[in-house]
């Protein structure tokens, strides 16, 4: 198999943390490959998986659209390329988003997951928190969830809930698309990133056969 290239959308947000966690996951799985920052359309054509990092979803959405990256990202995901979005990344992947305070937002979204997200659903920064999560998909041990001005999934028409917090969906998976309301790139726990890297490896293997 060729070396894996996982792109980290590097427009705004915690790009370095996402790069380092993805590289750690690749190493731990003993996979040949690297995580690389991507900004431009031509770079997005050259990757096998994509991570949309945490940050400000309005900013990432607007600027991704400006560089012409949005269309290609959408096409590649629809062709089966695995993608993982964390916090702002989850909002980017959603079909609809609204804010608890100001209502519907006109922000640019990718419309990949048929979900509605409520932004800042737990409140402002003073209400940001850490909580232990149960994520059966990646094992029995609790996962340290870091929620920073985090969204929640209000409606879900496709995909499955990976984990919930007080019966609110905070992570979803649909095919090879993963979206989390929390920040696995900040927790130091590589299990979710490893799960994602495995999706990328499976995607490459399937493509190699066909």
């Amino acid at each position, binding site marked *: 198999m060729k070396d894996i290239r996982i792109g980290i959308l590097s427009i705004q947000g915690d790009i370095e943390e996402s790069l380092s966690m993805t590289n750690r996951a690749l190493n731990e799985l003993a996979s040949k490959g690297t995580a690389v920052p991507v900004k431009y359309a031509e770079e997005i054509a050259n990757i096998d998986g994509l991570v949309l990092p945490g940050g*400000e979803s309005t900013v990432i959405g607007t600027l991704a659209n400006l560089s012409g990256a949005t269309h290609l990202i959408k096409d590649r995901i629809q062709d089966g390329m695995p993608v993982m979005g964390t916090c702002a990344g989850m909002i980017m992947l959603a079909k609809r988003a609204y804010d608890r305070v100001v209502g519907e937002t006109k922000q640019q979204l990718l419309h990949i997951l048929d979900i509605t997200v409520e932004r800042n659903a737990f409140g*402002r920064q*003073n209400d940001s928190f850490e909580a232990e999560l149960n994520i059966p998909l990646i094992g029995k041990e609790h996962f340290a969830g870091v929620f920073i001005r985090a969204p929640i999934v209000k409606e879900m028409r496709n995909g499955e809930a990976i984990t919930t917090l007080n019966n609110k969906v905070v992570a979803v998976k649909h095919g090879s698309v993963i979206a989390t309301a929390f920040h696995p790139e900040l927790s130091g726990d590589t299990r979710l990133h490893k799960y994602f890297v495995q999706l990328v490896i499976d995607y490459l293997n399937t493509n190699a056969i066909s």
Partner: protein
Amino acid sequence: MISLVSTELQPKGVKLERMETVPVRKGTTLVKRGFAHMQKHGVIMDVTNVEQAQIAEDAGAVAVMVLDKLPYDVRKAGGVARTASIRVIEQIRDHITIPIMAKCRIGHLYEAKVLEVSGVDMIDESEVLTPADEEHHIWKWDFTTPFVNGAKNLGEALRRMEEGASMIRTKGEPGTGNVAEAVKHIRLVNDEIRKIKSIHESGDIQELVKAARELKVSFAYVEETARLGRLPIVNFAAGGIATPADAAFLMNLGCDGVFVGSGIFKAEDPAERARAVVIATTYHDDPKQVMEAQKMVDEKKSMLGMDTTKLDLRMQERGSEV
């Protein structure tokens, strides 16, 4: 990764609560520094009212910083500069979706407490306002809200971190439209980090202890900085940024993001300029993109720059020596 070196063992700002059935921890160092990390590669804009906040959000600012007067007007008005009206802060808070920050006076514990309960996302303990305490900065571990502090050298930056700051912005001369001081300080911090990094690589612990004493800061922070080869918390550039190229220049010197103050709303083309500064910050490593951003603004509409050597009021000097 987020560095958690020498975090206070039981900071008062941490709240253990139960959210319905789940125990949660609010105000932890990871959550506070994590918030600062989410602002990276972005532009934080000074605003004084809802209209300006809306322009900032539309232009792609990652957050707004609310203050009563822009630094340029603080210079002109003189007198004592205090935190913004709570009413204005609330109006802006309820109008935009991006985070909202507000400035309090250095050492003014109570202005900070008021800002915390007003629900701002970050407090800037700022030399742009008139300092309230000549000897002390606020002990920030007692707050659930994260803080950003100014610094003009490595010692100052690490001392603010020791007090619990989650973000540093290098000091410049705000309100001058002159980027020279911001450049000087980011270069100084970089040089000092390079120096301790090379000591660390040589394995000379005694020399590193000596460096910590000279910097007037705990050894743990110096060692962590030397090991990482960068500040352990996020470092933004600030003070005097007036054009897209200014922002790109500072990003290329290794900043994690930029603060833009008077440069936007004291120019005659604030909406275009705000957008252009955001684009130049994101694509700072690509001169072609920065040129496109420069094209969006007109130099005749830039704020007038000031010679920082002849200033009556040097804001970067304000704040205690330790």
